[in-house]
């Protein structure tokens, strides 16, 4: 029986999955950014137009999607810092694995700080 390769910085395990997640969250944030520039540009048109469109952001479904967006941004931002540390910090490669877990924990803590407050705004709790 051939055994599974042990995995390296780039293939398998944390090194690969952190990268996959970084791509997926990056693409999601990019498409939101396109929409967000366009919706904000409506302030140039009229207060009514802007308020009508931004009103849809306050609905339950989009309100929940915003939670996903914030989670994606938190992960992408903090994992980006991890990537920079791997590139520039002398011990970055050595600690890339533990740094990823630190990224996940900080993301989770920030997310849990944000989520109840945001949900209370969206659902009027």
């Amino acid at each position: 029986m051939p055994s599974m390769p042990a995995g390296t910085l780039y293939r398998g395990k944390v090194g690969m999955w952190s990268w996959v997640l970084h791509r997926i969250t990056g693409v999601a944030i990019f498409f939101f950014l396109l929409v967000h520039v366009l919706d904000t540009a409506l302030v140039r048109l009229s207060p009514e137009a802007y308020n009508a469109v931004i009103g849809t952001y306050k609905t339950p479904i989009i309100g929940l999607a915003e939670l996903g967006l914030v989670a994606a941004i938190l992960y992408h931002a903090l994992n980006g810092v991890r990537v920079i540390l791997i590139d520039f910090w002398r011990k970055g490669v050595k600690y890339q694995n533990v740094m990823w877990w630190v990224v996940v924990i900080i993301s989770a803590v920030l997310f849990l700080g944000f989520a109840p407050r945001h949900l209370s705004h969206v659902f009027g709790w």
Partner: protein
Amino acid sequence: MSVVIEQPRSPRNRKQANFEKYGWMYMRASGVVLVILIFGHLFTNLFLGEGIKAIDFAFVGGKWSDPFWQVWDLLMLWLALIHGTNGMRTIVNDYTSREGLRKALVIALWAICAALIVLGTLVVFTFDPCPAGSPANLLPSFCPAS
């Protein structure tokens, strides 16, 4: 796109290497700044006060009457769009196999990026928080009409 593997000792093509090198450096430099800008953006707009519930024309008008937030948002616009577009370019380069399609997608990406940067920049600088003839209750409190 055929992959050409160069001879290990062949001199590198300096021009091409530099474009990708500057792109690589830009992603990291803009990334660090964007972490600060976007975390601050999310904190002030979605966490403080009434969060998403409070966002309307008057809220944006109030923020952009302060040059501090104008510069903040302008920097975010430029840095994030170029960062995102360059990231998408990397993904397109990775996953497209036909050279014509790859070129078309990359050109489309930069065209969208340029259009949104121009649009956003114009909006930030030509925005009027107190447009004449608008209902007073929709405007920021500092407007003469409200």
